[in-house]
């Protein structure tokens, strides 16, 4: 069932948490609200859940306005950041809570609880209290509790935040599988872009109470709409440049004495200041003596992280850049203090924003 | 080592606290038991204040206690060979006899109390040489004249069905309660040695309201919880003086008179100077003030005339004095504990 926000604004005193957002979550898709803390993503989720009411605008569910429908009548499942499991109830009582509160027939309660516990793999732990469960098990219990009411929409508020990395990655996959299996419309909130890419059909990047860009994950990564998205999603290098030449099929951008040629047209004027946005993996380090062009730089930090090598270099112009490359076994081509040149690997994959 | 020092210090300080004598015994403060409420005023204004003016170094602290609660503390102090926490106390006849029996009263040195010569000798004899007869009061019937239209004349009137549930009593651990118990016995063919008729009669008086002490009983009149009760003449007088419609009658065959003795307590650190208070309580000055409005304590000094407005509360004619009922307390006092226990088993709720 699709969720829609129409011109929704929410203020807390002087601060505007949600600033005139209109957005539609398509049915049966998993949409991630991605943004830094304080961007309003959790508030947006709470508006959908009905724990808060917007100051203006409407929330729609399946085309029906639910702005003022109390949360207990929305039939929306939510998994809280801290799981909010009822500590005085066993796993089974937690999972069956929603059904029991709706006075569902006992046989239905038993059957649905059973099914849901099976779905999340907690059948054997049904008689445990939450404090007797591990973090991952609590998370599954919280998910089961939300799913047991057969929600029209599932809301997940940073549900993996409390788990360690390995478990987190596993849970992301498991949860995604369950959601795909059930085909349930899901809104997922996180500040972790990796998590967003793992889970999402669509990503909406939020900043300062607005949705700044939304689309498929790779689209967000490859074609960030502005420097905030470029920076927040994936991280980028920002090289200040001046437009040196505007041609039919490309631009020449000058940084100091170095000129970068990018092979696409943009609506820019010669002499205009701009910023060239380059992903770390789109930069390449070359030995100082070899070839020509690029920026002269010194390696200031080397971080070998498993499959990748990450370098931090400082250019002669005083700029700090991040460079990433696939690490070959036993090879460490540059060490701290080495002189090198920095080149664009694929000029096609750069973005330029006017400033 | 350090623990030992700390532990030693703690015990030392606490030990010192326990061994050191209470300061009150040394500071020139005489502790005297008194009545509660306005009945305490004669003690305060006409006994303590003149005494303190005559002895600038000494103060007298009046402690209200109507149920003889101090006795246990005195007994405990004497058993532990400590000075008595109380120096003087007024006691009606029953507790007076009881305290003599317990050995808790100091014999009076008559040389130090010249005013004893002015006291009614019959009362002085009752003191048995312990303390002085300070005042006497009557136990009669107090009633709310607005709620009780038929003026009661006899103890029997308490049993009038019109007052059911509106009768106030105090338990027989108080003098008032004991006196009423005896009156109820005599009225129904019993006496001090045969109280059974009294128990029967009081049982048939239920439901009644039991106040913890006479002052509380007086408060029940104020709040109209009760309309009629056996009460001290002095308490009734105080209520009337407040403008309440409370009247006092001396019922047939006569009101019960109980003498109150002021006595020095065994173990007092002030036996010598306390005799001056005994002398002062017998003085014409004190006696006439205590007998005046609104207290109407019966004077024990032969030279003090009963003021005319006291007629409702104190017998003024010889005839009336003759009709006063006295109780054979020596019979009652030894079995007091059994009486209180019987009362509790019958009427405690």
């Amino acid at each position, binding site marked *: 069932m699709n969720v829609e926000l129409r011109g929704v604004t929410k203020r807390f005193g002087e601060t505007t948490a949600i600033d005139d957002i209109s957005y539609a979550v398509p049915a049966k898709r998993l949409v991630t609200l991605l943004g830094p803390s304080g961007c309003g993503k959790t508030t947006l989720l709470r508006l959908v*859940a*009905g*724990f808060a009411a917007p100051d203006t605008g409407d929330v729609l569910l399946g085309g029906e306005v639910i702005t003022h429908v109390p*949360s*207990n*009548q*929305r*039939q*929306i*499942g*939510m998994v*809280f950041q*801290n799981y*909010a499991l*009822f*500590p*005085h*109830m066993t796993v089974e009582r937690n999972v069956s*809570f*929603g059904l029991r*509160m709706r006075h569902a027939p006992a046989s239905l309660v038993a059957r649905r609880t059973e099914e849901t516990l099976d779905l999340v793999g907690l059948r054997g732990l049904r008689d445990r209290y939450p*404090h007797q469960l591990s973090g991952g098990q609590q998370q599954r219990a919280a998910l089961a*509790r*939300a799913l047991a*009411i057969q929600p029209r929409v599932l809301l997940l508020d940073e549900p993996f935040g409390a788990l360690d990395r390995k478990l987190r990655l596993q849970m992301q996959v498991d949860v995604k599988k369950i959601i795909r299996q059930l085909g349930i419309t899901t809104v997922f909130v996180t500040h972790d872009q990796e998590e967003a890419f793992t889970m999402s059909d669509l990503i909406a990047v939020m900043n300062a109470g607005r949705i700044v860009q939304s689309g498929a994950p790779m689209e967000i990564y490859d074609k960030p709409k502005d420097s905030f998205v470029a920076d927040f999603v994936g991280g980028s290098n920002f090289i200040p440049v001046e437009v040196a030449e505007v041609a039919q099929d490309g631009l020449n951008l000058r940084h100091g004495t170095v000129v970068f040629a990018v092979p696409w047209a943009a609506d820019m004027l010669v002499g205009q200041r701009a910023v060239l946005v380059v992903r770390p993996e789109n930069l390449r380090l070359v030995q100082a003596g070899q070839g020509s062009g690029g920026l002269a730089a010194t390696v200031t930090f080397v971080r070998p992280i498993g499959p990748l090598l990450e370098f931090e270099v400082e250019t002669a112009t005083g700029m700090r850049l991040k460079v990433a490359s696939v690490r070959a076994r036993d090879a460490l081509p540059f060490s701290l203090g080495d002189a090198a040149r920095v080149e664009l690997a694929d000029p096609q994959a750069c973005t330029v924003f006017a400033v | 080592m*350090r*623990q030992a020092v*700390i532990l030693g210090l*703690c015990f030392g300080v*606490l030990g010192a606290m326990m061994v050191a004598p209470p300061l009150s015994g040394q500071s020139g403060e005489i502790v005297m038991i008194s009545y509660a409420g306005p009945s305490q005023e004669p003690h305060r204004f006409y006994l303590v204040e003149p005494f303190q003016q005559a002895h600038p170094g000494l103060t007298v602290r009046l402690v209200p206690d109507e*149920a*003889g*609660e101090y*006795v*246990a503390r005195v*007994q*405990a102090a*004497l*058993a532990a060979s400590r000075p008595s926490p109380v120096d003087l106390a007024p006691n009606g006849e029953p507790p007076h006899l009881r305290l003599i029996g317990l050995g808790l009263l100091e014999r009076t040195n008559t040389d130090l109390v010249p005013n004893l010569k002015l006291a009614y000798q019959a009362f002085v004899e009752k003191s048995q040489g312990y303390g002085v007869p300070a005042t006497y009061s009557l136990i009669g019937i107090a009633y709310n004249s607005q709620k009780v239209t038929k003026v009661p004349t006899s103890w029997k009137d308490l049993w009038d069905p019109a007052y059911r549930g509106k009768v106030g*009593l*105090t*338990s027989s*651990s108080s003098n008032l309660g004991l006196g009423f118990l005896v009156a109820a016995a005599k009225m129904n063919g019993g006496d001090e040695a045969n109280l059974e008729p009294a128990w029967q009669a009081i049982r048939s008086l239920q439901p009644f*309201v*039991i*106040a*913890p*002490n006479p002052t*509380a009983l007086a*408060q*029940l009149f104020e*709040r*109209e*919880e009760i309309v009629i009760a056996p009460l001290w003449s002095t308490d009734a007088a105080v209520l009337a003086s407040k403008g309440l419609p409370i009247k006092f009658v001396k019922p047939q065959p006569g009101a019960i008179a109980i003498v109150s003795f002021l006595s020095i307590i065994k173990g007092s650190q002030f036996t010598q100077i306390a005799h001056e208070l005994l002398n002062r309580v017998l003085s014409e000055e004190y006696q006439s003030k205590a007998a005046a409005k609104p207290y109407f304590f019966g004077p024990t000094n032969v030279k003090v005339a009963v003021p005319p407005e006291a007629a409702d509360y104190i017998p003024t004619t010889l005839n009336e004095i003759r009709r006063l009922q006295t109780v054979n307390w020596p019979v009652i006092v030894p079995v007091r*504990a059994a009486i*209180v226990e019987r009362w*509790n*088993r019958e009427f*405690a*709720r």
Partner: protein
Amino acid sequence: MRSPRVGTWHQAELAAPAVVFLIIFLAIPLLLLFAFGLVDIRAARVVPGSWTLEHYARILGDPFYYRIFLRTFWMGLGATIFCLLFGYPVAYLFTRVGPAARQVLLVLILAPLLTNAVVRTFGWMIILGGQKGLINALLLRVGLIDEPVRILYTMSGVLIGLTQIQLPFMILPVIAALEGQDRSLQEAAAGLGATWAQTFFHVVVPLSMPGVLTGSALVFVISYTNFAVPALLGGGSFAVIPTFIFEQISALLQWNNGAVLSSLLLGTAMVMLWLFNRASARLLRWTR
């Protein structure tokens, strides 16, 4: 990091004064109290070598005292129930209002602890006492009763008094328990379809049970052993054990009876606390 052993030593040192204090002013007097029931006491003096079980046997063999103990128990239980009924909503309200209202509420909650006994007794007289008492005046005005009912010097009056002064001991632990509750639990319940009442009774109340149980234990024990309130509001001959002990000692100088009844009062209170703790432990299995 310090070894646990070092830590324990330091803790022992810190606790030493309190332990010594408790031994001198609590343990020893309690033992003496118990012992006083096992010897003959005449004129407040222990008769040497007079060990006897007679005093305990006399009281334990007398159904009269069982009745009074039972009454005392009902008094404690009644006060506990009323404190819970009146205190819980106040505690709940406290956790729902803003800081300014909290200040006011807190003062009101603590007020009974701050007023002295004389003022309080006077207040009770005015509120409970007779035809002119506030409660009677109100009930008459509303038309619930035709004639003034007696409240002063009845069990009802005593329970009203106990409830009033004991309320803070119920309210404060319940507030602590409610304040510690994660608000998202209530949202979770609402999200799962629970109504306000369902959330309250299935989530808020069960989670506040630790506070409720602490408060109940406190109120029960303080009420069960309370002397002042039954003495002031129960009137003469109001038969509960604490007033009875007082009468035995102060009016009758029956030190033996006083000691036996005091020991039994303390003993029964401790046994009830122990049973209560066991029951609580079952009820609170879900806590860590």
